[in-house]
């Protein structure tokens, strides 16, 4: 072993959580090596120039949930972090109806009032309620969750403190947290809004990346998680990172390296090496062994517990929980290089309408139908699309006058009932393109290039089981106390010195960095 290279810590996987984790460990003075299997870092947060001049955000495509303390702690602004605000959000249907919301309170009021004057007013009540819930929940996003299954007095004290915090919240806030945690977003929205178009718009965050519909009881929590982000202190606001989310992970790499960390790409890890019940390093797929006191997996829970280590050496109830952990990826990406901007009837020539999320999923009914297809193992005939044309804000995303459009698409179940993704890839591309052409007539004519990324592609390329973009469903049963498994929600594993820091851990998926940061806290605490 003495000939082996030796680090204080090795992080497996150079996605955003791996880099954040490495960054915190390096900041604490550890000699850290991040290993990435692909030729470049970023994981599912990459920007690729697939055709000259057009920068594709192949997978993730916007930023909101990145924890604000990470930005400060790792000095990310110094390393080029730049989150460009989205001034507008656009929600439209194929009948030419739309809602365009921006930053001005009364402009939004009058815009919603075109659809329902009561909804325009309800929007303020809803936002106020949501703001109070977000404010109450935020500290929970930024702490190691307590372990309710432990008899350790320290854990029990931690749990008591958590309960005290929750019980100390105002009763109506507690009630709403319960409703978001256990109920559907449709149920909550029905209390506030009457317009189908308004409700459709409001519900879109409730299904992102998750096998549920706005009427499923899982959708409240998916919604809440997506609005827990903030941009410049405003909850629920999103931004584009300069040059896409790949631009952001490059910032993380620079920050990590500036703290003395080392990144190696094109390096696959075969397994974690164990000696005397302790992780002592990793073995690469080249056979090389690198030693380390600490090994951190940013891979998904399935790979962390069943691939990088021998599951037979793990407690059987943990392996049982990991086997039961649901991935079932349901989202895809279809990205377009465009010769011009799409045109919406009545708003011809308006660039500003595309400067935020372009939401295709007009009503809850529409989303329900799309979900029904998925339940039966089919691609949604009329899919939900979250479109982004970042080049309307960031000119470096596409050649001058041309555009790049990222489309997040649901539902596209990983397990197709009667076909497979290698066959259906372009079928998906056609469905999305046709749907866009229905909303934006003439869309077909401006498409220069199309990239289709199916759940199978996400699994193959990024390595996330079943292509789930969050490294595991955001179901209440798989969150907080139970992410990724009951009793193993504090970034440790049964193997001493081996930790987990991927999105399969609290607080979960999205380009958030929370798991990476909290895992580092835990590692540093354990080192004393």
């Amino acid at each position, binding site marked *: 072993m003495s000939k082996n290279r030796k680090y204080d810590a090795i992080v497996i996987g150079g996605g955003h959580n791996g880099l954040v984790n490495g960054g915190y460990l390096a900041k604490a003075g550890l000699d850290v090596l991040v290993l990435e299997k692909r030729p470049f870092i970023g994981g599912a947060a990459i920007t690729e120039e697939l055709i000259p001049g057009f920068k594709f955000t192949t997978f993730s495509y916007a930023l909101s949930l990145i924890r604000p303390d990470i930005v400060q702690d790792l000095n990310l602004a110094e390393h080029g972090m730049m989150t460009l605000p989205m001034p507008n959000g656009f929600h439209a249907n194929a009948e030419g109806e739309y809602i365009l919301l921006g930053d*001005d309170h*009364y*402009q939004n*009021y*009058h815009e919603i009032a075109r659809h329902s*004057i*009561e909804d*325009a*007013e*309800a929007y*303020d*009540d809803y936002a*106020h309620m949501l*703001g*109070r819930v977000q*404010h109450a929940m935020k500290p929970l996003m930024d702490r190691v969750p307590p372990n309710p299954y432990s008899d350790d007095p320290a854990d029990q004290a931690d749990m008591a403190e958590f309960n005290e915090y929750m019980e100390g919240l105002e009763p109506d806030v507690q009630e709403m947290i319960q409703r978001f945690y256990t109920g559907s977003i449709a149920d909550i929205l029905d209390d506030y809004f009457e317009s189908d178009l308004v409700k459709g718009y409001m519900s879109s965050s409730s299904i992102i990346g998750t096998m549920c519909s706005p009427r499923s009881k899982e959708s409240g929590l998916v919604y809440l998680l997506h609005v827990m982000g903030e941009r410049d202190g405003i909850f629920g606001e999103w931004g584009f990172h300069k040059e896409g989310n790949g631009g952001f992970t490059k910032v993380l790499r620079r920050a990590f390296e500036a703290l003395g960390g080392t990144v190696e790409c094109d390096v696959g890890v075969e397994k974690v090496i164990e000696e005397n019940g302790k992780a002592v390093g990793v073995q690469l797929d080249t056979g090389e062994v690198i030693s380390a006191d600490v090994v951190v997996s940013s891979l998904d829970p399935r790979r962390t517990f069943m691939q990088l280590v021998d599951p037979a050496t793990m407690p059987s109830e943990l392996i049982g929980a990991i086997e039961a952990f649901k991935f079932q990826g349901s989202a895809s990406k279809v990205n377009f290089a465009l010769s011009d901007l799409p045109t919406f009837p009545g708003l011809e020539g308006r660039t500003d309408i595309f400067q935020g999320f372009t939401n295709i999923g007009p009503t809850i009914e529409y989303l329900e139908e799309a979900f029904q297809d998925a339940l039966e193992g089919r691609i949604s005939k009329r899919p939900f699309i979250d479109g982004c044309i970042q080049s309307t804000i960031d000119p470096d995303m596409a050649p001058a006058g041309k555009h790049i459009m990222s489309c997040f698409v649901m539902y596209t179940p990983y397990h197709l009932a009667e076909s497979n993704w290698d066959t259906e890839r372009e079928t998906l591309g056609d469905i999305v393109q046709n749907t866009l052409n229905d909303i934006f007539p003439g869309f077909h004519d401006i498409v220069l290039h199309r990239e289709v990324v199916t759940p199978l592609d996400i699994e193959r390329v990024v390595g996330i089981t079943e292509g789930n973009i969050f490294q595991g469903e955001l179901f209440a049963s798989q969150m907080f106390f139970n992410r990724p498994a009951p009793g193993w929600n504090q970034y440790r594993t049964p193997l001493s010195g081996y930790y987990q820091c991927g999105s399969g851990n609290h607080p979960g998926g999205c380009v958030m960095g929370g798991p990476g940061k909290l895992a580092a806290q835990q590692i540093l605490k354990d080192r004393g």
Partner: protein
Amino acid sequence: MVKRTPFHERLEPLNQPEIWEHWAGYLAAPRYQYSDLAEYYSTRNAVSLFDTSPLFKYKFSGPDAEAFLSRVLARDIRKCRVGQAQYTIWCNEAGYVMEDGVIMRVSADEYWLTTAEPNLRYFRKLAKGANVTIEDISTQYGVLAIQGPHSLSTLGQLSDDIAELRFFRLTQTKMAGVDVTVSRTGFTGDLGYEIWVAADDALTLFDAIWEAGKGYNMTAIGSAALSIARIEAGLLLIDVDFHNARFAWTDAQRETPYELGWGWMFKKLHSDDRDFIGRAAIEKEIATGSSRWKTVGLAVDWRDYDRLHREAGIMTPKEGVLVQDTMSIYRRSDIPWQYAGYASSFMWSSLKKQHVAIAKLPFDLCEPGTEVDLEISVIRQPQYVLSRVVELPFFNPARKTARQA
């Protein structure tokens, strides 16, 4: 897209600085000429015209309208007879103020209410089951405020019904051939009227009033001049002097009617059997004396204010001083910086030749004449200036309420 009031076509060419601000999603002028003070004085010396159309307007009609409003509004609407208007407020169940507004009883079963913020859904939710129809008529009407000593001389030319109109009374009449509803109300604390007109007739009415006002130097005024007038009048402004309890985060941001100086609305509470929203909490507040502070006027000692600036080597700022934000007030004592309360509106009153403020102070500091220290900034340094509690309003001319205006 930003909205335009029914009078915009006429007001747009009057706006010399060509600066517009947004008020509830409408274009509104902060000023129409370069001197806020000159605009302000038109209200005290001649006659001013202010476009108040962006306010939200609601119509309550039906046999249960009175019963509904007696439950929802904190002030007793049953005392408001046909042809009368009422300055009113509504509270939440905890007895904190949500909003204020002026309500007019235009017929036995019909009321019109103006509010600063949207309330249609709020009222409709409370009206479930009651035989009352609540409509948002905000865009159906334009409203002009014609205020100042010559407001009657101006409007009297257009209708014979104005001269008789008493304070907080209204009349439905015709001006320049169009139907109007005129109330003797306003936000300036002066003699004045507010005129509702159907949006389609707005320009006809505007032209007639503008023509009638010419001989009296009628001046269009913007929000800055109005602010000066309303502070002198001791009229509280939402989001400045108080905040809607509906959107506050904690009770520290909420205020009760008693704390805001609206206790007079409940003088006859003992003989008022209404079960209105917030009643139990308000009664408890009265019984236990749990009000946290009172709203009072503050007059700054001019010598002290002058001294602070002279010692710093600068002229004493007067014209243009208008702060609609919080400034801290301290107890006068040997121990410095003992926080006592705050001012929410502070300005130089050119008319009173005095710096004045609307302030919130604890009970032991509320007696007129009580001395406190108001924190101001003199060349970037915090200083406190001697101030005395005075009665509100600061300015209250007899003509405002005179029977024969």
